[in-house]
């Protein structure tokens, strides 16, 4: 196949921004505890306030909305005009799924088969409609599959307690067993590390949550599904993604495939995160695109470019590759 490309700067920028938001989410997660003025700080709920799905279903079901959640209108506005950047650059759960997809490390040929658009991606829209239907009649169950709720709830009840227990057990064992040779003991290094962990990362008391096994298992399953398809959750399940897909169906920032430059190698499919790409060059589904720019980075002939524009009319022909 074509030679391995050097990753483009835009992709590195995107990865950097994703990393920042994921770290921000995890930081806010750790910050969600008591601080000495009986406050947790309103800032810890930031991601939920940016979440238009949570806002929409709460509003439909209860006919009122917490003021802070109106921030999510900004997300909607940006998506309406510019497309699903939120999924590709901001959503921390999306980034986590992205990371696990990368761990998959499939060969290029295997990736080509699963990278592009698949009909099952429509499933998330039906999931969204189920929740919207329920919300219309007072039931706000969207939180079960809202990505921030899913991620935060799983972190709280399953992931963090597991990590906390594992780390505490390790340092507990090191403290008791005190391994070493002669006067050189591991605790000389491990105890200072433990003190830092204890003060900044570990829980004051080991948390235990009812229902953690099911929640943890579901979380693990969702993460593992990234080995089946790239960003499985984002493509097939996420109702927020579906909502943003509907809103961001016609973005003004568009990916263009030059029919002349394209040599039909289809490498652009291999790393497509959202499943917006199809084997037909010139076809691009904006409702599924996360603007990850992997396709642009991978293209050996630089046939893919980003630009402003509006959708061609339905009667106009789309570019077709020879």
């Amino acid at each position, binding site marked *: 196949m074509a030679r391995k490309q050097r990753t483009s700067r835009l992709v590195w920028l995107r990865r950097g921004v994703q990393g920042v938001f994921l770290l921000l989410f995890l930081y806010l997660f750790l910050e969600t505890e008591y601080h000495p003025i009986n*406050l947790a700080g309103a800032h810890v709920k930031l991601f939920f306030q940016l979440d238009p799905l949570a806002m929409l*279903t709460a509003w439909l079901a209860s006919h009122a909305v917490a003021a802070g959640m109106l921030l999510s209108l900004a997300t909607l506005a940006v998506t309406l005009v510019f497309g699903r950047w939120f999924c590709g650059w901001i959503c921390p759960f999306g980034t986590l799924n992205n990371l696990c997809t990368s761990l998959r490390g499939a060969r290029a040929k295997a990736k080509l088969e699963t990278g592009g658009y698949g009909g099952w991606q429509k499933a998330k*829209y039906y999931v969204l409609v189920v929740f919207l239907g329920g919300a219309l009649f007072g039931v*706000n169950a969207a939180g079960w599959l809202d990505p*921030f709720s899913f991620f*935060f709830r799983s972190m709280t009840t399953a992931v963090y307690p597991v990590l906390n227990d594992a780390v505490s057990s390790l340092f507990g064992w090191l403290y008791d067993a005190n391994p070493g040779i002669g006067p050189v003991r591991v605790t000389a290094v491990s105890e200072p590390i433990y003190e830092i962990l204890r003060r900044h990362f570990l829980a004051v008391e080991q948390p*235990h949550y*009812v229902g953690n096994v099911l929640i943890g298992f579901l979380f693990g399953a969702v993460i593992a599904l990234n080995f089946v398809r790239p960003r499985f959750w984002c493509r097939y399940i996420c109702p927020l993604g579906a909502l943003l897909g509907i809103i961001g169906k016609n973005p003004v920032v568009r990916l263009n495939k030059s029919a002349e430059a394209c040599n039909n190698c289809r490498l652009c499919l291999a790393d497509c995160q959202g499943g917006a790409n199809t084997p037909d060059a010139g076809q691009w589904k904006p409702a599924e695109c996360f603007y990850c720019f992997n396709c642009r980075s991978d293209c050996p002939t630089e046939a893919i470019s980003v630009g402003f524009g509006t959708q061609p009319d339905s009667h106009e022909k789309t570019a077709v590759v020879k």
Partner: protein
Amino acid sequence: MIGPIFRWIKGFVKPPQSARLDLSRRQLLASGAAGIGAAYLFHTHPLGRQRSYNPDLVRPPGALAEEEFLSKCTRCGECMKVCPTNGIHPAAFEAGLEGLWTPVLKMTIGYCEYECTLCTQVCPTGAIRALTVAEKQRVKIGLAYFDRNRCLPYAYARTCIVCEEHCPTPKKAIWFEEAQVTTPAGEKVTVKQPRVDPELCIGCGICVNKCVIKGQPAVLVSSVGESRNPANGLLLNSGGPYGG
């Protein structure tokens, strides 16, 4: 300027084939119907429309009345993370299937700290209303009751009163009657037998949490008397801003 905007709007309504979501109308209707049907099933469950109450469903202080609460709660787990005593947990079926993963207090694991309002501060949707400390201290989330078959001074002729020791209300909601009981050895001893004052008890559950009889404590909290659901109240004319 107008032209591109017009074309842009038209792109939503009449997109080219490649950009269509391609959702089947039939499947959309079926999905919507499923959502609506599920909603009505939840409403007609015994816990729906507040037809009846689950004594185990003790919610955090500041939680709205149940129907409204369920319509707002996004099951995010912020309150569960912030609770300093690890007292708030994701519900299984205490609130019916509709309430899956909504917050519920489990007193054997944690309790509601008297001067704390953290859960009311972090709830993003307002399902748990923000409260000041003074407001929170007047909210009842439930009512404690003793299981005299297990409580030491009732059942085993020994004094304990760890529950009273920890009771945080300014005037303690647990009080005593001294009683003469007989020990297994036949001695007569005086023990302090605890009782709950329903006007003072706010259902915080620290008594349950500290009870020396682990697993199935001798004192429990049930949701009756909770301020947020007046129909699940208890006392007539007990005053207080939330009635009940």
